[in-house]
């Protein structure tokens, strides 16, 4: 047992921190919060790649470093602390790589993994799961992929696809067994789709923060080669559930508004006690201490999940609990910050009156998404109850 990091881990953290400090100093990126993952640039991702910080946990044979998840968590914690712009490689690193390593064909592994690890041009991914009528109930997807010779032909619509407009590839879930009597959990498959394939149209959706972050994606007879199928045909739902166990509990679920919380604490330190009523100060201290406790616990949950994966165990219920806990904490942060800062919390970036660099208003605008994307809190609670506690379904 050990609740501190090893010297080597501390050294690694220091190295990452130093790299980020010099990047910030050079003006490469701002540390403001907003989106789950700050939209990235390939140049920045390449700098990480040069240091071996993409695909860190993957086996060496695929260009990875074979390092433990706990070390990856250290890297991610440092990146999120300053909201580093890792959007170019984030999904490929978190989701696509591990899924390919588990389920991909040799060709897929050789074709994608080394390029992702190097942050080569043309390997930005998006996730094509949700549909207008299949959100939480992912087994209800109706987009279809029908085998036609050496190809599949894809039809249907996806929605809420983050960064589809910037993606080179999409990771698609589509029905492959169209027999209406087929088991709904055993009739969809996973594919990797080149987003430039004719028949694919991406239409931006403006979110409530005013940004075109996610999209609608339409497939009209889009023809993709059969070798795009990942894993087994009709096993897509099960594969995704297994992938999610591993990728659900990253520190991004705790730290989307980390700079906001840091600034809130600093704001209270900087406030002249004689200028605030004593009762307010006592209240604010109590509330912020509570958030600090929750943050500390959320962090333990994330590291514990990473450690569990390093022990070779599937962290199903644990990861679900972690994400549910952390995302709810994030929502409390912006609410509490607004109660402490008062009416100016509404003022967005760009003017002197906007408090905490405008991160607060931004977090209030993004807040409702925290507990939805990547599986809603309610669905996560179901997972803990059913799979963790073994409660009956009916």
């Amino acid at each position, binding site marked *: *047992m*050990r*609740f*501190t*990091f090893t010297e080597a*881990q501390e050294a690694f953290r220091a190295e990452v921190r130093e790299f980020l400090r010099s990047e910030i100093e050079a003006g490469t990126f701002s540390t403001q919060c907003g989106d789950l993952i700050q939209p990235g640039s390939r140049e920045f991702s390449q700098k990480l790649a040069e240091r071996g910080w993409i695909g860190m946990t993957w086996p060496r044979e695929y260009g990875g470093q074979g390092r433990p998840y*706990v070390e990856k968590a250290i890297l991610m914690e440092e990146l999120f602390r300053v909201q580093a712009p890792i959007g170019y490689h984030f999904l490929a690193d978190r989701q696509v790589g591990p899924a390919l390593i588990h389920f991909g064909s040799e060709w897929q592994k050789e074709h994608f993994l080394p390029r992702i690890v190097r942050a080569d041009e043309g390997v930005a991914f998006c996730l094509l799961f949700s549909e207008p009528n299949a959100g939480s109930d992912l087994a209800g997807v109706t987009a279809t992929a029908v085998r036609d010779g050496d190809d599949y032909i894809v039809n249907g619509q996806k929605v809420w696809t983050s960064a589809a407009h910037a993606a080179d590839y999409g990771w698609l879930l589509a029905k492959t067994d169209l027999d209406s009597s087929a088991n709904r959990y055993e009739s969809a498959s996973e594919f990797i789709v080149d987003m430039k394939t004719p028949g694919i149209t991406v239409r931006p959706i403006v979110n409530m923060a005013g940004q075109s972050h996610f999209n609608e994606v339409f497939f009209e007879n889009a023809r993709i080669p059969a070798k795009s199928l990942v894993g087994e045909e009709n096993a897509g739902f099960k594969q995704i559930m297994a992938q999610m166990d591993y990728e659900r509990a990253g520190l991004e679920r705790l730290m989307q508004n980390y700079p906001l919380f840091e600034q809130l*604490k600093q704001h*209270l*330190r900087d406030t002249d006690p004689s200028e605030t009523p004593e009762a307010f100060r006592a209240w*604010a*201290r*109590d509330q*912020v*201490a*509570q958030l*600090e*406790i929750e943050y*500390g*616990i959320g962090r*333990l*949950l994330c*590291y*514990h999940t*990473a*450690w*569990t994966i390093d*022990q070779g165990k599937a962290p199903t*219920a*644990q990861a679900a*609990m972690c994400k*549910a*806990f952390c995302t709810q904490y994030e929502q409390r942060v912006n609410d509490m910050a607004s109660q402490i800062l008062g009416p100016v919390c509404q003022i967005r970036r760009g003017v002197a009156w906007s408090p905490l660099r405008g991160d607060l208003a931004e977090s209030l605008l993004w807040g409702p998404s925290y507990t939805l994307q990547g599986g809603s809190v*309610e669905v996560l*609670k*179901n997972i*803990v*109850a*059913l799979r*963790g*506690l*073994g*409660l*009956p*379904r*009916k």
Partner: protein
Amino acid sequence: MDFGMDEQTAIVRDTARKFFREQCPSSRMREILATEEGYSPEMWRQMAELGWLGLVNDESYGGSGGTLFDLFTLVEEMGRALLPSPFFCSSVLSGPLIEEAGDQDLKKALLPQMIRGEKILTVALLGGEGRPDFDDPTLRAHPVDGGRYELTGTRLLVPFAHVAGGILVCAKIEGAASDGPTLFLVDPNTDGLECVPLDTLTKERTFALRFNRARVDGDRIVGGLGQGGAHMGHIWPKATVLKCAEMLGGMERVVEMTVAHVKERHQFGRPLGALQAVHHACFEMATCLETTRLVTTQAAWLLSQGLPAAKDLAMAKAWCNDAYKKCAAIGHQLHGAIGFTEEHDMHLYSQHAKASEMTFGTSWHHRSRVADELGI
């Protein structure tokens, strides 16, 4: 980061769990609670034989030389079983306090007896207002002839004072050069000390002590004049985290009991546990438990390593208080009326949650420490 349990600790846990499962099932626990002593002398002897009463005391006094972490695990199991015993006041508080503060003669005389189970010790922590006041106690010590003192004042909620062979108290010596409070070891049978039994939420034996010019000899001062507050302050964090361990154990049992209940009980033609409202309530309990385990284990580990732990400890106790209480409230709700009966165990745990929330600092107190650490 390594969340794995050491082999040694796992042995303590397994032994303790088995012991309490066999020796202290809920039926037995209730019998013990109903006795005059409020603990089982027989089980106390067995615990002494297992080396538990001096688990963290030095081997030279007959202790087992275990780690704080071993003790954490043992106390967790006691909490799970809700063992009625003077273990906390005697082995968690007094033993380490004597070892920390006492001189060689006292340690040699007292610790082996305590560790063998022949003498129970307790600590009177709370003043008449019901707050721990070892920094500035309301209890006064008036020096009289022959190097003796007369103690005057009130102590509240002193556990197992009726069977204790010695009571540790902090008192302020009137007219002393040193300002700090002094630790005394008081004989419970001393004249001028009245021991009033209190009926409280839990059935644990606990007392109000009225000191009315109660005489103590100067040689019953433990750890030097004016040093009492410092000694208490030194063992306080460890005792606090061990209280968290006890609460963690209690929570485990509440979650177990409740999850089993909702799987078992049927309404509307299906188990309660098939209803989503119940799923989500159980999720809350499971989360309380898991988070409490992580945050308290972290504090215990840091303290056992002698690393700075002020903030982590405050986080642990604040969280533990709220989480145990929440678990108990959900537990009651999901049990329905049966959980409101004397016969059912649920109330023993919910009252334990309340009683332990009130010791070693309420949530507000600890959050205030966290805020101090944050510099806000």
